[in-house]
C-alpha cells in the first residue's frame, strides 16, 4: 500500500502501520494525565469561588426556609418567610420605590451619558481628553463619598443647592426630607456618578463606527440629527444594550447612596415615610437590625427573582427586534 507520509528509507515496520483499536480505560487515564495541569491551575480560583460564592447561595436558599435569629436554634417554617414578606407593607414599599427609581434613573442616566459621549466624540485633541476626564471624575469618587458630599449639598441651610436656588430667586427645597422629592434627589446623585462610566463605554463604541457611514449619509443629504438616529444608534446597538442591561442590574441593587443620604442605621432606615427604602436596604436591616436571617435570605432571593425577571425581559425584547 502506498503511503505518502513515509519518506523513502524511514522505518516501516508492522508496528508503525498498526491500526489503533478501542480506547476506553487507557484514554480516560491519559485524558486525566494530560489535563490535570489545567485543573490544577484552575483550582485556586474555583476553590474560593465554590466556598465563598456558590456555597453561600446554597446556604442562603436553605436559610430562607427557616426562622433564625443567630442565637436560638433555627426553626423550619417552609414558605412562611416568603409569604410574610409578600404581605409586608415595607416590602411592598421598597419594591415600589425600586421600580419607580429604576424607571427614572436608567433612561435619564443613559441618555445623559449618550449625549455626553456624542459631545466628547465631536471634540478634537487635548480638549477631548480634558472634557472626558472631567465627566469621568465623578465615577472615580467612591460612591459612599459621592453620596456623603451630596448629602451636604442637599442640606437645608448650608447646602450649596438651596443656596444657589436662593440666588436665583427660588424657594428652598427640602431635598432629603420631603418624601415627594427624595427619589429625585437620589436619581440626581446616581446620574451624576454613572454618566461618566456609561459615557466611556459608549464613547468606545462610537469610535468604532466607520466614518464612511456618516459620509455616505451626508452625501444623501442627512443632517446631524438624522445621522444620529439612522446611523449612530443602530450601529451602537450592542454597546447600548450592554450599558442598559448593566444599568438596570446595578440600579436594582441600590444601597450605598440611599443609605447614606438618609443617614440610616440598622435601627431606623429608609428616610422619612420610607421614601428611600429599597430592597437591599430592607434586607440588610432585617438581617442586622432585627436579626431575622431567614427572612433576610428570603428577601434576597425575591430581589434576585425580580432582577432575573427584568434582565430576561430585556433580553427577550432585544431578540424580538
Amino acid at each position, binding site marked *: 500500500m502506498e503511503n505518502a507520509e513515509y519518506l523513502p528509507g524511514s522505518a516501516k515496520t508492522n508496528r508503525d502501520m498498526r491500526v489503533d483499536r478501542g480506547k476506553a480505560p487507557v484514554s480516560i487515564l491519559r485524558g486525566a494525565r494530560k489535563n490535570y495541569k489545567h485543573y490544577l491551575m484552575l483550582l485556586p480560583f474555583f476553590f474560593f*469561588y465554590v466556598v465563598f*460564592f456558590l456555597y453561600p447561595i446554597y446556604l442562603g436558599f436553605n436559610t430562607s426556609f427557616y426562622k433564625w435569629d443567630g442565637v436560638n436554634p433555627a426553626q423550619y417554617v417552609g414558605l412562611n418567610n416568603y409569604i410574610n414578606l409578600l404581605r409586608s407593607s415595607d416590602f411592598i414599599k421598597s419594591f415600589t420605590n425600586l421600580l419607580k427609581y429604576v424607571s427614572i434613573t436608567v433612561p435619564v442616566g443613559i441618555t*445623559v451619558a449618550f449625549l455626553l459621549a456624542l459631545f466628547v466624540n465631536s471634540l478634537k485633541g487635548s480638549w477631548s481628553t480634558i472634557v472626558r476626564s472631567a465627566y469621568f*471624575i465623578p465615577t472615580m469618587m*467612591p460612591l*459612599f463619598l459621592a453620596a456623603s458630599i451630596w448629602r451636604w449639598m442637599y442640606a437645608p441651610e448650608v447646602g*450649596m443647592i438651596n443656596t444657589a436656588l436662593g440666588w436665583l430667586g427660588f424657594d428652598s427645597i427640602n431635598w432629603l426630607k420631603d418624601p415627594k422629592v427624595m427619589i429625585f434627589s437620589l436619581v440626581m446623585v446616581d446620574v451624576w456618578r454613572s454618566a461618566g462610566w456609561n459615557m466611556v463605554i459608549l464613547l468606545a463604541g462610537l469610535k468604532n463606527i466607520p466614518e464612511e457611514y456618516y459620509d455616505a449619509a451626508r452625501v444623501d443629504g442627512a443632517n446631524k440629527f438624522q445621522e444620529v438616529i439612522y446611523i449612530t444608534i443602530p450601529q451602537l446597538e450592542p454597546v447600548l444594550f450592554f450599558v442598559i442591561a448593566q444599568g438596570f442590574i446595578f440600579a436594582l441593587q441600590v444601597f450605598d447612596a440611599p443609605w447614606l443620604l438618609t443617614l440610616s442605621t440598622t435601627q431606623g432606615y429608609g428616610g422619612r415615610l420610607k421614601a428611600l427604602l429599597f430592597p437591599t436596604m430592607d434586607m440588610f436591616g432585617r438581617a442586622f437590625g432585627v436579626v431575622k436571617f431567614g427572612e433576610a435570605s428570603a428577601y434576597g432571593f425575591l430581589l434576585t427573582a425580580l432582577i432575573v425577571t427584568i434582565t430576561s425581559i430585556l433580553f427577550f425584547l432585544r431578540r424580538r427586534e
Partner: protein
Amino acid sequence: MQKNRKKFHFRLGRTIAWILAIAFFIISLFPIWWMFNIVFSPAGVPIAINPRLYPTSISAGIKNITFILSESNVFRAYMNSITYCALEIAGSVLLCSLAAYEFALFDFPGKNVLFAVILLSLMVPTAVTLVPTFLLVARLNWLNSMRGLVVPGLASAFGLFMLTQFFKDIPREIMDAAEIDGASHFGIYWYVVLPLSRNALITLAILTFMMTWGNFIWPIVIAKRAEIITVSQMINWYNDPNSFATINSQMTAFLLAALLPIIVYTLFQRQIIQGISITGLKG
C-alpha cells in the same frame, strides 16, 4: 430662506449642546471643588457671607487636616483600607490570572461548562450572597478580621472575565517557543504570559482598587470593631447634622478619603478608561 432657517436651527442646536455640555462639566466637578473649598475655609462663617465658591484660607485647611489626622482612629482606618485593598488586589490578580490563563489559551474537558457557570454568576446580585456570606464568615470566626474582609471577594468573576479577554491576544508562537525551551505549564504562565499581559494585570489591579476602596456594604457588615474599621465607615464619625461646624471636619475626612482614588485615577487614567471600554465592546 430655507438655507437660512436650516443654518439657524443648526446654530441653535449647537449652542444648546454647548450650554448643556458646559453645564454638566460644572456639575461634574463642582461637588469635589466645593468639598475642597470647605476644607480650606475658616470654620463657622455662615454660608451667606462666604458661600465657599473658592478656597479662602490655607491655614484653616491645614488646621482641619491635622485635626482629623491626629485622631489615631483615622490613621488606623486609612491603614486598614490600604491593607484591605492591597491584599484584595494581590489575591484577585493571582487567582484570576491563573484561571484566565487556562480559559483563554487552552482546551480541556469541561471548559465550556465551567466558563458558563462563571458567566452566570455575573448575573447574581450581592443581595443573594450578602447575608449567607456573613453567616459563613461568622461561622469561620473571621468576623472583625482582615481575612473576613478580604477573602470572600477574591474569586472575582468580573476579573476572570476581563483577563480572559486580554489573554486571548497572547501570541502562541512565544508560548510554543518557551515550551520547546523546556518551560513547564506553570513556567509558561509565570515567565511568558504574565510579563506580556502586564497592562491587563495593571488594569485589573486598578479597577479592583477602586471597587475595594469604595466598598461600603461589606465592611459595615463585617468590620464593626474600631481596630478593623475602614475608611468607608470612618467618614461617618463626624456626624452632627445640625451643627454647621462639623461640615468642616466631615469634608476634611471626605477629602482624605478621596485622596488615594484621585491620585490613582490621575496616574492611571488611560488604563482605567481602556479597561472599562473593553468590557463594553466585548460584553
